[in-house]
């Protein structure tokens, strides 16, 4: 059951989460220095990087689908916008023409460069931040325009309409006429990516490759959690549970649905920027509807409506598909040697079966509708009760 918290408990939990996140970030920073790209443990860093991208994508989708009840399948489209915006505004001017081989690049500056020249290394970091925020804003802007006609549709139609818009966005980004901006059907590269994220303090060089995406994800997810716990978050849940009653109690449906949609899409855009950062390329064909489906499955795996569930679900998904089940693709798994079965693609098959099992038999997902903090809180209260009874 979702635990109802006293204000005292609430404050404790908030501080605990804050410090736990700080500790986690510290750990990630440490791992960044200790694990080199050549190490066999490097997979852990890749999982952390990709995991944080998908964690943010899943949490932002959960805000829209799980909390507000708007079944939208357009997430990949907004991530695409975010990825491209980020890439376009962080390609150094020196590399501009090599990247835009066939076109005359329209955007000729890069935020990290501009700020970096003015303010030194801190400026470069600021430039990256500005580009990420701009990525989110662009995605939110498109979401606003798309939301105007689409948000009043019934759930099934909303799903297909948003799916359609995502496909339209993808086609538009690949259109040769927009080549000067999007590079047409060619991918974007050479922009600010994780392998380049370093901090130089005197004579020490700190690698920030995993730290930066995890930091961005952590901050973004914290903001989303605060939104969900606010009066607006409760209004969203009211819309999900019964929108007729919500409207009767003074909640303007169009306005609140639009808020949820644009905020969710903003963070989808940020996740897209992170994806570009982590993959080092931005390519429209990566952002097909299959990506939206995968994120949806991550949300379902974790439990629709639960933010910690979405985070857990996405890290599990990434770890399993990229790392743990790797053996299923390369002949030997858990000591069983069967190269005829365990070949390329088997990993995804096993994974899809697991997902189907969850969807059919564990519909609540891992967390149901609860958060990690609820589980912890219930346990703590049970322990306190036992202590009282024992006295």
């Amino acid at each position, binding site marked *: 059951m979702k635990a109802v918290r006293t204000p005292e408990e609430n404050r404790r939990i908030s501080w605990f989460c804050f410090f736990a996140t700080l500790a986690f970030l510290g750990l990630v920073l440490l791992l960044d220095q200790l694990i080199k790209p050549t190490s066999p443990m490097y997979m852990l860093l890749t999982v952390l990087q990709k995991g944080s991208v998908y964690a943010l994508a899943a949490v932002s989708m959960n805000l829209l689908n799980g909390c507000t009840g708007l079944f939208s399948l357009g997430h990949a489209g907004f991530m695409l916008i975010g990825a491209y915006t980020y890439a376009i505004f962080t390609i150094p001017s020196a590399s501009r023409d090599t990247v835009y081989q066939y076109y005359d690049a329209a955007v000729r500056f890069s935020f990290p460069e501009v700020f970096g020249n003015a303010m030194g290394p801190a400026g470069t970091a600021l430039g990256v931040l500005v580009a990420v925020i701009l990525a989110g804003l662009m995605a939110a802007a498109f979401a606003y325009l798309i939301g105007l006609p689409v948000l009043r549709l019934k759930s*099934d139609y909303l*799903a297909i309409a948003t799916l359609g818009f995502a496909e339209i966005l993808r*086609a538009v980004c*690949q259109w040769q006429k927009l080549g000067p901006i999007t590079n047409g059907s060619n991918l974007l590269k050479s922009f600010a990516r994780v392998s380049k994220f370093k901090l130089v303090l005197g004579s020490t060089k700190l690698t920030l490759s995993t730290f930066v995406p995890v930091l961005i994800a952590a901050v973004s997810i914290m903001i989303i959690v605060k939104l969900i716990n606010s009066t607006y978050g409760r209004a969203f849940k009211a819309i999900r549970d019964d929108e007729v009653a919500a409207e009767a109690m003074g909640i303007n449906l169009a306005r609140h649905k639009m808020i949820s949609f644009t905020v969710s899409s903003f963070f989808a855009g940020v996740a897209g920027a992170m994806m570009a950062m982590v993959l080092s390329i931005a390519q429209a064909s990566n952002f097909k509807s299959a990506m939206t489906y995968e994120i949806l499955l991550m949300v379902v795996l974790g439990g629709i409506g639960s933010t910690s569930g979405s985070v857990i679900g996405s890290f599990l998904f990434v770890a399993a598909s990229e790392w743990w089940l790797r053996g299923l693709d390369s002949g030997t798994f858990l000591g069983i040697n069967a190269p005829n079965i365990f070949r390329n*693609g088997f990993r995804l098959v096993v994974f899809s079966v697991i*997902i*189907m099992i969850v969807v059919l038999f564990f*519909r609540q997902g891992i967390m149901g509708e609860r958060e990690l903090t609820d589980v912890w809180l219930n346990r703590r209260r049970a322990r306190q009760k036992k202590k009282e009874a024992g006295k």
Partner: protein
Amino acid sequence: MDKTILPYLISGVSVGGQYALIAIGYTMVYGILRLINFAHGDVFMVAGLMMVYAAAAMPLSLAIPLVIILTVLLGFTIERVAYRPLRTAPRMSVMISAIGVSYLLQNLALYITGGLNKNYPQIPWISDRVTVLGMETSRVTIITPFLTVFLVVLLVLLINHTKIGMAMRAVSLNFETSQLMGIRINSVISATFIIGTFLAAVGSMLFFTNYPGVVPTSGAMPGLKAFVAAVFGGIGSIPGAVIGAFIIGIAESLIKGLDTILIVNGTITEQIGLATFSDAFTFVLLIIILVFKPTGLFGEKTTDKV
């Protein structure tokens, strides 16, 4: 001018017919279960793959009926395993299950084919080249629309003049009451899936004869477009889905050739890459119909009771 447009028109009518055969499956299932069967397009793709492997192992006269039977079996099984258990669950759960099945089918196909493009076998006679209206094309392009209309007419007759057809109509109008009136819901639903999948299997044979490359994602786009066709024509209406599919097929084909047409026409002087939008156009159409007439061209309006 005619000479430029005609090949696109003809190929558009043909692909429209293939979409129609898929669209019917979507619209029938949605009419009865209010479920968007995301896996339907992938079943279509699996039918294509099955033919590739079957044709390599046995003569076509055996392969064709075998593939049809296996595909129908697949559709039937999917309903039993992935949709029936969730019938009492909230709508989103079933849709997510459909997405899960779609994901599984695509990954299975990827695994089995090893990621390689598979080439669809040439079915003699329908893949022969013929000359029609001064234009050279393959026979399948000409046959498809006729075959489609024929099958649709058969289906409409079945729906309107048989007991099972009446049961289907009843269930799509009111699920609960039909159950209370003693209609065997499970049989009706299974029959719906069987018919829809059968048509998709036939459609796959026609489609892949025209576009012989079969990849795991071959079903995604046609499936999506077929669904849009069903929505466009009015979800639950079979003639509507068919008309919608033909419109989409023709529009898609014309847009693919739009650059060429406009150049010959004199409207533009050079290629502006409008073909990129041939897929996207389907969705523009979808948005337009959803915004202006969500019940589709032939759909019926229902008011919700508060």
